[in-house]
């Protein structure tokens, strides 16, 4: 009887797995996404990333660039990125904060970091990064990198309306709302682009 139950549970899980693989209609295979990730993102009815807002975060980071949602990186990445040393040389810019603010901002972003989220994109990002060596850029997470690898320099780097891959809002028209779905994408100067 006990063994039967186990078999039953296994069968149900396998069924869920195949259904979620079929339902994963975001255009590619998602090879590196594990079973857990697939099952979770299938059960999660929350698309995109959680759109949390925090005034101090907006003032500290959002005055120079789009205030990327915390769920676009795992805590490990945020901790590296928001260390005092890194902020003094933030990809060549100075983004220093006083210590009290630095801690508050770090606290905010890690509270809503990718691995703690039940939003689909966050789950996928969290499952695509190495925990021992978390990437410093959202575009260096394997999931985001894979989703954009078909784009050429013509469409991104050399496109005056885009210029760098981290410029989410250039193409993702609803990025500020935490929405990144395909049908909200339009690439400047490429009106006929389709995935």
């Amino acid at each position, binding site marked *: 009887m006990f063994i039967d139950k186990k078999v039953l549970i296994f069968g149900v899980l396998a069924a869920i797995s195949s259904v979620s693989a079929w339902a994963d209609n975001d255009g590619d295979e998602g090879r590196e996404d594990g079973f857990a990730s697939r099952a979770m993102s299938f059960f999660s009815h929350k698309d995109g990333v959680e759109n949390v807002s925090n005034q101090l975060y907006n003032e500290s980071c959002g005055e120079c660039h789009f205030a990327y949602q915390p769920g676009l990186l795992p805590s490990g990445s945020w901790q590296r990125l928001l260390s005092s040393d890194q902020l003094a040389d933030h*990809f*060549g810019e*100075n983004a220093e904060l006083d210590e009290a603010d630095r801690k508050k901002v770090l606290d905010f972003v890690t509270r809503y970091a990718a691995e703690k989220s039940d939003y689909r994109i966050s789950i996928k990002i969290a499952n695509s990064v190495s925990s021992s060596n978390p990437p410093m850029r959202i575009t260096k997470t394997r999931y985001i990198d894979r989703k954009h690898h078909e784009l050429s320099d013509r469409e991104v780097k050399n496109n005056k309306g885009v210029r760098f891959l981290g410029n989410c809002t250039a193409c993702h028209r609803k990025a500020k709302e935490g929405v990144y779905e395909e049908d909200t994408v339009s690439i400047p100067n490429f009106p006929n682009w389709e995935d």
Partner: protein
Amino acid sequence: MKRNLRVLVASVFVAVLFCGQSFAAGGSAIPEMLKAFEAQGAGNFSADGVKDLWVREFKAKDGKMRSCSTCHGTDLTQSGKHARTGKVIDPMALSVNPERFTKAKKIKKWFKRNCKWAWGRECTAQEKGNFLTYFKGL
């Protein structure tokens, strides 16, 4: 009746308090900052020469030349543009963008970041006082 009066007095008090706060929030933080710079030994702040300093270029570690005007432009009544991200930077002139100068904390943050970015060092109290005096007069 007495109770009504008390409520009225309390409401007026709260209203005055809020007005006071909003005035404080909308006021310029420049006088308070200049005082703080004086306390650090600086003084006689002047806008003379700041216009030239604004465009003075320094070579950064990446080999590129940087100045205040790289991002803020030379007409401070106009918007600038972040050199890397392209994000619009609101004007620096107090006359067209007073909101920029309402919080001492924000001014301190940006002096620190931008002096280090453009000039590779923090600005002195005297330099910062001169800059604020310059923005105030534009």
